[in-house]
Structure formats: C-alpha cells, structure tokens
C-alpha cells in the first residue's frame, strides 16, 4: 500500500447563491444541517466509513469557515499522517493564476495534488448532498466491471427527470447515452454527481478538455459525453436510499423536516455508519418545567423554556418561556425571546429574535425583505448575528439581512 488506492475530491467551490444569506459568510458545505451536522459531514463521513483516507476539498468561495470547521480532520478520523484532509483553493503558479472555472477545471488545477498520491482511482464528490453511501462497494463494482468510469445513479420520479442528468444504460449497467436535463427522458436514472475514474484516464481527459476552447470544463456537460463518444466503458452504479440535493432554501428546509418525519430514511442512529461532526463541547440540553417539546430534534447546550413543535434545533439554542417555535430550523446559538412566535423560519447562527416578534409562514403581506425569487411556501430566513427588534412582524418569504438598522433589525454583532 505504498501508493494510495483512491483519492476523493469534494467539489465545494460553488457560491451556493440560491441559499441566499445562509451562504453570505460560509461556503455551502459548511451550512448547518440536521441539528448536529454541517452538510459536508455526510460526504466526509461516507469517505471515512468507506475507508477512504485521502480527501481533498476544493474550495474557492469563502473557504475560511470550512477550513476551520474541517481543521485537522480529527472528527471524521481523517487526521492521518499519510493522507488526511486537504483544503485546496486555487493558487498562484509560476507566471499565472486562475480561479476555478468549472468542475472539471477545478480538478485539472489540482492534478499535481492528485499525482502526489499516485492513486489508481479518483472519486469525485459534491459537497452539498445528504446521503449515506459506501464508496468502497462502488469501487468494487467499478473494478469488477473493468470500467473507465463509474457514475452513481438513483431512480427519480419520472416527473422530475428534466431536472437531472439522466443516464441511459444497457442491461449490464453500461451507460449508452447521457442526457443533461432532458425534456423527454428515456430513463429515470439520474446522476448523483458521484464519479469514480481510473486516474490515468481522467488525467488524459482533463488535459484534453482544458485545451478545448468551447468547453465549459464541467463533468456532466463535457467530460462524460466526450468519454461516451469515444466508446469508453462507463458504468452506472445504482444507489437506493435517501439522497437529497440541498441546494435551495426549500430543499434545505425539507431535508431538515425529513429528519423528523422520516427518521428511518436517512437513519442518523445507525451505529454501523455514523455521521461524524465537529463537537460543540456543550452540556446536555435542559428542558425546563415550563417547556413543551414535540416532534422535534435537538442537541447539546439547548435550553428550552418555551414551546417547540416540529422543529430542528442546533446546539446552544435558547427558547425563552412563552416563545413558540413551529416548523423551524434554528442554527447554533439562536435565542428566541419570550412571547415570540416563529413559523417555518430558518434562523442562522446566534441571531436573537426579540420579545413578541411574529415571523414566518402565518404572517401574510410583504416587507423590505420579501424575496420571492429564492423563497416560497412562507419560509422565512434570518441572517446570522442579528438582533431582531422586539414586537417586529415579519411576513413569510422574507430574507432578513443586515443593511442598516430599521424597524425589523435593531443591530448586528460579530458571530
């Protein structure tokens, strides 16, 4: 094992602009999810549980929080002397420098990093999906099928095929054609954005693609179609189980609610496939005499004096007496003061909801923060580090972000 069998590369460079203020200071993979986790915990834990020990995280946009969150990689058992986690932003080479231009270009720019490990296989992952998957089994299939590349696919409802990259395969699972967001799909097998490549093959394709002036340098649009065109053996690896792209506010909210409504689908209590995360180091949570908690998930450091229903609370959330929180997601350190009522709200780090605030899906109307471009269904989002004025009323579909103090925002503070 002097050479490294497989290197995983997580594409975490996108700005995640559809998540609005949630990614204003954070790369998307660092966004909190599911009471105890960050989105990237799922991919990192999958790597660790699959026995993959060398993981590069390709960042570009706001990598700092992700960098400090991943740190030495210890929470995922990825603090290896050989291998481990590496944050890979674009860098300056002799004479020139480039930001990452597309998924394929991002890998192209890290050929040197990959070559240092001399791997047989490279696993390309995306940092913004919620799922549990054993990549070792996928690799076994890849090797058995003598594939040049293997793409993980899952069945999606026929009505949604037009949102995905769709694989058409023969009976043996070999991919015959690939259609990016087809209007009339011939199959409902959608690409999960999880690829295993033989490294020499991918290296050649990346170099070739880099020369192509017309290419978008994207795996789905460019690399895969070209490989199919020249007749390479691309295999589809079928995945069944919970999988969710949390790229939009509504999908992020839904995936959080799935933890409550469909706990067995993603099953966070599976001790043979733990999802690891960096621990906040807080005491057990406290449920006071006055509290009422139902259909909810919470974790260490919460202090609950009010009513919480069908909500996901992250560590160190305080719900004061008389406050009511429903169908909401409250990120670490959020305080909801007495008398406040939240419905279908997503509140980012440490924001303080003032007394008697009313916000969310049950409040109709519009305000200066109404954002129907990114929000729907009444979901209301608060930026991190805000103090919301007592008694403020905030209608659904609002994206509350600091500009200057106004009738809704009293002040902001550093988180």
């Amino acid at each position, binding site marked *: 094992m002097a050479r490294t069998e497989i290197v995983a590369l997580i594409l975490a460079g996108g700005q995640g602009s559809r998540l609005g203020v949630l990614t204003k200071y954070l790369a998307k993979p660092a966004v909190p999810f*599911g*009471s*105890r986790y960050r989105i990237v915990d799922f991919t990192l834990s999958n790597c660790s549980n699959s026995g993959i020990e060398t993981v590069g995280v390709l960042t570009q946009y706001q990598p700092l929080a992700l960098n400090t969150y991943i740190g030495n990689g*210890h*929470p995922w058992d990825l603090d290896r002397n050989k291998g481990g986690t590496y944050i890979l932003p674009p860098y300056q080479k002799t004479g020139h420098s480039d930001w990452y231009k597309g998924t394929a270009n991002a890998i192209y720019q890290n050929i040197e990093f990959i070559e240092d490990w001399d791997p047989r296989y490279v696993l390309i992952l995306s940092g913004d999906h919620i799922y549990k998957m054993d990549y070792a089994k996928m690799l076994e299939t890849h090797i058995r099928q003598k594939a040049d590349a293997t793409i993980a696919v899952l069945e999606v409802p026929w009505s949604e095929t037009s949102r995905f990259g769709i694989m058409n395969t023969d009976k043996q699972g070999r991919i015959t054609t690939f259609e990016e967001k087809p209007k009339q799909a011939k199959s409902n097998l959608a690409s999960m954005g999880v690829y295993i490549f033989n490294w020499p093959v991918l290296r050649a394709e990346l170099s070739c693609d880099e020369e192509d002036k017309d290419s978008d340098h994207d795996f789905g649009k460019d690399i895969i179609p070209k490989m199919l065109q020249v007749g390479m053996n691309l295999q589809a690896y079928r995945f069944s189980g919970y999988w969710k792209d949390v790229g939009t506010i509504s999908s992020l909210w839904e995936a959080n609610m799935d*933890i*409550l409504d469909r*706990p067995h689908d993603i099953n*966070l*209590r599976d001790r043979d496939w*733990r*999802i*690891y*995360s960096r*621990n906040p*180091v*807080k*005491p*057990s*949570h*406290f*449920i*006071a*005499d*006055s*509290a009422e*908690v*139902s*259909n*909810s*998930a*919470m*974790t*260490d450091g919460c202090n609950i004096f009010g009513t919480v229903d069908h909500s*996901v609370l992250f560590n160190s959330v305080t719900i004061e007496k008389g406050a009511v929180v429903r169908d909401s997601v409250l990120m670490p350190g959020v305080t909801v003061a007495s008398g406040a009522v939240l419905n279908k709200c997503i509140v980012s780090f440490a924001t303080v909801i003032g007394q008697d605030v009313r916000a969310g899906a049950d409040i109709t109307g519009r305000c200066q923060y109404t954002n129907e471009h990114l929000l729907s269904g009444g979901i209301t989002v608060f930026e991190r580090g805000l103090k919301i004025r007592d008694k403020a009323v905030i209608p659904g579909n609002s994206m509350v972000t600091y500009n200057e103090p106004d009738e809704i925002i009293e002040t902001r503070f550093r988180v």
Partner: protein
Amino acid sequence: MFINAMGLILADHKRIQLGELSRPRALAAIPFAGRYRIIDFMLSNMVNSGMTSVGVIALHKYKSLMDHLGTGSSWDLDRKNKGLSLLPPYINSVNINDGGEIDDLSGLLDFFRANRRRYVVIANSNVVFNATFNDFVARHEESGADISVLYNRDGMKYGSPGAILGVDRKGWVKDVLFNPPKPVSSRCSMGVIIIERERLLDLVNEDVARGEHDFSVENFLRRYVELKIFAMEYKEVLLRINSIQTYFSSTMDLLDERTRQDLFWSGLPVFTKVKDEAPTLYGSKNRAENSLISDGCLINGAVSNSMLFRGVTVSAHATIKNSIIMQDTYISEGVVLENVILDKNCVIRPGIKLVGQKEFPVVIGKGAIV
C-alpha cells in the same frame, strides 16, 4: 497559556466506593452529568489551565478508564510527547502469578522525570468544579509553601467530609483531621494540592526508600508538621462525590440553574469523549420537564427531574421521575421509575415499577435486564 505545571489525577480513592457503580470501573470513570465521566471535570480544569502534560494513576479496574481516555484527543492531549499518560501498576517480573511485584511508584517517577514542569497539581477525582489553576499556582509560588491545598467551606455539609483543615490567620495549615465526628472547622480539603516537581520527587523517593507504596493526597496533608502547607479557599460551585447518596444529590443539584451555569456556562468548556450520537428526537406525545437530556435519546414518555445520558430510549407511557438513566439504557412501555439510578446498557421490561427513596435510590448495575 504558558502555565509551568503538570497535572496528576488519582483515579481511585481507597475510602470511596459507589456500590454497583464502582463495581465495573475506577471512581474516575463513573459516568456523571449526562455526557461525562467524573474525571472529565478535573482533566478539563487542567487542560483549560494550559497544561499539556497530565498523568492518571489507575490502580485497578482501569479498562473503562483506558477506553474513555483513548489517545487523549478529546482533551487535545494526544501530544507527540504523550500529553496524557495513564499510569497503571507496572508488573516488572515475568509473570505476576509467579510472585511478581507491582511497582506503582517507579512508573510515577519515570513520568515526573520525562515531563519537566516546575509544579505539579495533584488531584483526587471525586470533586467536580470548573476553574483553572493558574491563579492558585501563582499564589502557591508567592506563598513559599512546600505544598498548597485547595479547600472550600463544605465541612459542615456532609456527614463524612474527608480532611478538615485547621488554618491560621495567614493561611498555614496547623491541623488536619480525617473524618472527625465533630468538625472543628468548616474548611474541608478538596483533595487538590500544588507542589514543586523536584520537591515531590524527593518525597516520593523517600517513600520508596521506606518501602511505602501508598501515594495519596491525604498522605501529604498528614505531614503538615514537617512541611509548610498553605491553604487556599475555592468559593465557587463544588460537588463532592463520596457515596451513592452524594452522587445522586450532586446530579440533582445540576438541575439548579446556578449550579448548571457555574459548571457549564462560565466560558471554560468541559471536554469529554465524543460519541457522535444522533440528535435527540422528541415524539408527539412525550412529556419532558426539568430534566437534562443528552444526545441520541428517543423521548416518547414522561421524564421529570431526571438526568438522561446519551442514547437512552424512553418508550411511550413510561414515567421517569427523580432518576438517573445512563447510556444506551432502554425503558420499555409503561415502566415507572422514581429515585432510581440505572447504569449503562440496562433494559427495563414493559410495565416494571422501581421506586426508591431520595436518600436511598434504587441502583441497578450495568447491563441488567429488569
């Protein structure tokens, strides 16, 4: 940051036994406060003081302690030069059963030789508080004492208080009484002392030369006539665990707002082994109140005035009152528990009723199926 001191924790105490809870493990390794083992508090105090070298003397039943401490990484003590050293008794002969001897103190001497800090903070593991030692070490240095000892005013509070200190106006220890029937003072040793490493090495070498193999805080205090011992008061929240009763009442104290704030929210984190449990899920018909609940639980029944450790399942129609339920214990439907301590991995079958008294809680050992 740059504290010139190292730590030494005594995982066992000859006089302290917690019945069923002590059976499978050392005192230091007894689960406490939902997510912790007792030792976590003292270890965190040392780490929060900036110590990067801590030894733990374990004499027996150290397996769960070893498992808990692991490489020391949870306390950021997985140092290149062994931040955390478990010091079990070293067996120096070929086969213990062939009459080999156990040599506790020579391992200890090696530890002190390998870790060169000026001072050593030696602590029993039965006291729970949250503080750093930086100021105490500085005051010890100023005092010119051979040994400094920490105490608080708990002397009147407990029936079996340990070492009561007679202290003069300048803070020098003039008298030490062990478990006196009628305390002469309320100053009660916390079992935490500070001593220069070189001085300690001399004292231990002397002990070894005398054939004395019993290393304890109390033995140092006993020498108050020949050594200059300085007493320093600790005024914040302190819990003493001397018995099943004090273990139970200390846990219940954590439900008190002030105690909880002082122990957990003063800004100094209490580190423990990370378990990567799922978040706790509350069902639609649970009733939880005035309780501390850890990660990974499933709560569908009624829980009040209780402490739930990680991974506890409370089924529907179960009622838990004034109780301590340890890790991964399963409470079936219709169970009724009051004033009960359940150790790890118990299963309480449907409809079972266990009721103890506040002063005499029912204690069920590890792994029991009731």
